[in-house]
């Protein structure tokens, strides 16, 4: 066995290189964010927090950050909550369960671009699906601009993502609920517990790991909604639907301001790391049997 271990090390070389490159790139981000740049040319001069102070001076940055927080709040809570309820109901029904969860899950295999093209049409104020249906039942839609209005645009976008990701939390919860000992639920029912009690007092506390998975994964997804923003509104109207990765892209590739772009990346990194690192530590215990 020992003799083979050198071969085992060889098998690890490619992934070691890849992981090394990834962490190297993160270090690179820091270097770029802390040094001077002339266009795409590095001057290799340490400038401290200069790029950060410029970034924090931008009003647009704070709008973007606020939007990221809106995504966290209004995307995660409903997706987790409705996903759990739906999983509970489906598990109770027993019949037709499989076809039903597939209906909810399959939008997840689509890309944000496809979802974005589809929902941008649905939200179109003059000839979109939603307003045409509303007009059909006699609603005056002249003031329903959906993604064309700065006040509502981001929430409309969140709804599209909710449509796409509900199946994800549903499936995670469904798997977790099936793992709960049947006797426990049965005992609670024998004691006359209502469905509400069973769902929230008996089952919900016992599927904490599913809640953790859903919350973290959906939180990471809110960083990845760049695509949806790009294809549905290009950040508009104004900058009302922009999120930080979008700002990062614009600063880097349109304004050619690499320093500020890298500073934005660092902010996103901080934002993601507080979710990813604790989650990874937790998940590690499941993978490595200790």
């Amino acid at each position, binding site marked *: 066995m020992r003799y083979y271990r050198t071969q085992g090390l060889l098998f690890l070389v490619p992934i070691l290189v890849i992981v090394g490159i990834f962490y190297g790139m993160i270090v690179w981000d820091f270097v770029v964010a802390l040094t001077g740049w002339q266009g795409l040319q590095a001057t290799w001069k340490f400038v401290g927090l200069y790029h950060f102070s410029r970034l924090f001076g931008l009003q647009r940055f704070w709008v973007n950050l606020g939007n990221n927080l809106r995504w966290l709040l209004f995307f995660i809570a409903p997706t987790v909550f409705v996903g759990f309820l739906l999983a509970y109901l489906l598990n109770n029904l027993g019949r037709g369960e499989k076809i039903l969860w597939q209906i909810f899950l399959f939008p997840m295999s689509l890309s944000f671009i496809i979802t974005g093209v589809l929902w941008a049409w649905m939200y179109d104020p003059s000839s979109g699906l939603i307003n045409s249906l509303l007009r059909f039942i006699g609603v005056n839609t002249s003031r329903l601009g959906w993604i064309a209005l700065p006040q509502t645009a981001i929430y409309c976008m969140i709804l599209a993502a909710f449509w796409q990701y509900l199946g994800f939390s549903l499936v995670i919860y469904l798997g977790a609920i099936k793992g709960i000992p049947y006797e426990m639920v049965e005992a609670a029912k024998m004691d006359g517990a209502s469905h509400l009690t069973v769902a929230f007092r008996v089952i919900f506390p016992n599927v904490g790991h599913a809640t953790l998975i859903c919350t973290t994964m959906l939180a990471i997804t809110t960083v990845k909604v760049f695509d949806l923003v790009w294809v549905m509104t290009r950040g508009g109207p104004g900058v009302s639907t922009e999120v930080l990765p979008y700002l990062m892209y614009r600063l880097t590739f349109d304004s050619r301001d690499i320093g500020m772009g890298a500073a934005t990346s660092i902010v996103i*990194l901080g934002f993601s790391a507080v979710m990813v690192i604790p989650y990874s530590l937790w998940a590690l215990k*499941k993978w490595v049997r200790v």
Partner: protein
Amino acid sequence: MKERYFLFLSALLVVVLAVVWMIPIYALVTTSLKTQQEVALQKYLVPPQQFQFTNFAKAFQVLKIGLRNSLVITLTATFVAVFIGSLAGYALTSFNFKFATLLFFFIVVVTFLPYHIVLIPITHILKTLSLLNTYAGLILIYTILSAPMATLITGTFFMKVPPELEEAALLDGCKPFPFYLRVLLPVSLPGLISATILVFIQIYNEFLLGIALTRGPDVKPVMPFLAELKGTQIAQWHIQMAGALITSIIPVAVFIFLGRYFISGLMAGYGKG
């Protein structure tokens, strides 16, 4: 009696919600088959009078280069990433390396961190290597970004293989690589399929790198083309929907035919092996 009433109500609720969830897809499919005049009537829930397949021809004309590029890039990068990932998954789960846990941790973190944060270094690396706007460059980057996830998923499945299998094989003189190739991979085929599907769909659906690392249509993947189609065919909903449908055929087919692997891959990838 009360219980049956509850079951009936919840069934009704779930079915209604499922119908609501399908309406966008139904509207997408029917609209993609309508003529421009029909679309202009805005009766989106009425089925098309006659199937207008020319919409697809039109959309396909725009998307075909992108589809070709996406297939070349996605298939190659998926293959390489799953190969590298499964080798690493094997090494990490079978050899009891002291540092395995630490390396696993680094891999998990990299898997979940959004790759958006390293967009700038990626661009620089490809520029230095003169690989911007090439298949090789995109394949390289997608491989780097996907191999950690492939390691996690395959590793999770390899852990379920009884260690006696490997001990017996090694005692019979089977070397690690032949064991990996001839025993471990076939035994863990479901895990391999799961990893392949998830990596494949992730790369195929990717958009940001597709626009940041390419110039012009030559190697650009399909998602940027679809986004452009939306920009150029303004309010031509039937063409837009035909394009969206063409682009979604591959992931939806994967989901329909290999759905259970999709689920088990998801579960494995999130630490619920």
